[in-house]
């Protein structure tokens, strides 16, 4: 039984653009899936619809395993935007606490859980720092900690590392994989980078634009943990070549 099942999902915006057309997609519990495609292929729109931000114009998004009464809104779902999207007036701890605060958890417990999550993303000691005092990579870590503080079953990420420099991005990729291995959430990672999608995921869903649709579903059969050795291996290069070919198809002539 999949965690999420999309059937015939389409999205047409108010201006008439068909952003997503007829998408069928199953996401299994615990898997790491990348949505790869050129800009404008509807991958972000698809991700937001899975999150419940904007209903599909047609089709259904079902959560077969979800107990609505036990979960409630936002309880088993974490979302990371392309920008860290932190509250500038709140320190790192308060930012991570936000989902717990909104669920009206007792303050002491919320603080404790948020502090533990900050430590898990490598920001122990930065609890009282304000977003403006943190680097881009550190802000993204806070954003990931906030998304994971509810221990969600699924983590949706919308090009989270696109704005970061390559060194920071590599480090965050590794740390994301370590978190995934530890917390066992389902990860859906939107990206336009072939290399990032191959490095991270078990499965790459390639999308094409105008209208946004799925054109390939590639398995990435490489073992975890993945590290720099994997990044320089022939296997990695081979997988990148396949994914690149599909992406080229997606972009068209």
């Amino acid at each position, binding site marked *: 039984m999949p965690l999420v099942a999309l059937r015939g999902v389409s999205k047409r915006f108010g201006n008439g653009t068909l952003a997503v057309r007829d998408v069928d997609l199953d996401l299994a519990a615990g898997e790491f899936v990348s949505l790869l495609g050129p800009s404008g292929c509807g991958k972000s729109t698809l991700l937001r619809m899975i999150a419940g*931000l904007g209903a599909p114009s047609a089709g259904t998004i079902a959560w077969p395993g979800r107990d609505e009464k036990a979960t409630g809104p936002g309880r088993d779902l974490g979302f990371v935007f392309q920008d860290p999207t932190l*509250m500038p007036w709140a320190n790192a701890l308060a930012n991570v606490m936000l989902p717990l605060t*909104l669920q009206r958890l007792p303050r002491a417990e919320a603080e404790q859980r948020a502090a533990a999550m900050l430590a898990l993303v490598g920001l122990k000691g930065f609890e009282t720092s304000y977003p403006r005092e943190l680097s881009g990579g550190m802000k993204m870590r806070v954003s990931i900690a906030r998304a994971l503080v509810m221990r969600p079953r699924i983590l949706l990420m919308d090009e989270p590392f696109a704005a970061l420099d390559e060194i920071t991005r590599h480090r965050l990729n590794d740390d994301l994989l*370590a978190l995934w291995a530890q917390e066992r959430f389902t990860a859906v990672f939107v990206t336009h980078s072939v290399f990032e999608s191959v490095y991270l995921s078990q499965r790459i869903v390639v999308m094409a634009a105008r209208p946004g649709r799925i054109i390939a579903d590639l398995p990435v059969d490489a073992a975890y943990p993945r590290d720099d050795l994997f990044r320089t291996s022939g296997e990695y290069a081979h997988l990148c070549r396949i994914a690149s070919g599909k992406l080229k198809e997606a972009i068209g002539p």
Partner: protein
Amino acid sequence: MSAPEDTLAREAAAAEALPVPAEPRFLGLPVSIWPRILAPLVIGVLVLALWELAVRWNDVPPYVLPGPLLVGRTLVEDWATLSASLWVTLRITFLALAAAILIGVALAVLFSQSKWLEMALLPYAIVLQVTPIVAIAPLIIIWADDIDLSLLICAWIVAFFPILSNTILGLSAADHNLVNLFELYGASRWQTLRYLKLPAALPYFLAGLKVSGGLALIGAVVAEFVAGTGGNASGLAYRILEAGYQLKIPRVFAALAMISLSGVAIFLATSLISHLLLRRWHETALRREN
């Protein structure tokens, strides 16, 4: 995720080990602050000196233009009367400002909750704002029995609009993705207001407050001019009118100086409040070192 933790902690430790370049201080204030205090002070003293000299050399009679020394002496001699009047004017000013904050913020919050209410009422707030207060002050004075109340209403009308319009703007200025995030976590209206919209509106509200502080004083003075109340419990504007009739021009200047200084003090106070509230997070309150 032990690797980054180590590295980040090491980076932070290394950063702390670096000596912070301490700025030399003079009389307890950082050296870089002094020009900002001294430059306007020098200009002020220079202009006052030139004024005094011009008055003396040309034998200008004090009922046309008193020199600053005479104004200063009048200020000291008439302090009892003038300070009592200052207190009356300031009381109206601060009450009007408080009412402007309360009603301005309350209306802005109400408008943010109901677009219908905003569409229905905002045009009238604008009408109130663009109508010259001198033109409606006589009406208000007729309608309100109590003279203090009518002064308060006039000052409030002038002061409340910047707070209202800025807070309305601020309440809708929250990051769109943050709004989405609150929606995702099932935040209630009240939670969204308290944890997102109000903090996001704070810098805008404070910008409005800076403007409104000065406007409340102007409103109070203008209304006093129109009302022209006499007696002991009258404000600085009445003292100016009274002294003008009696050709006590130095006293006019002394009262004017008190009004200006009060306005400056209100501006400095609201700026300080704004700085203290925003210094940890808002761009306008940050000092850039590069």
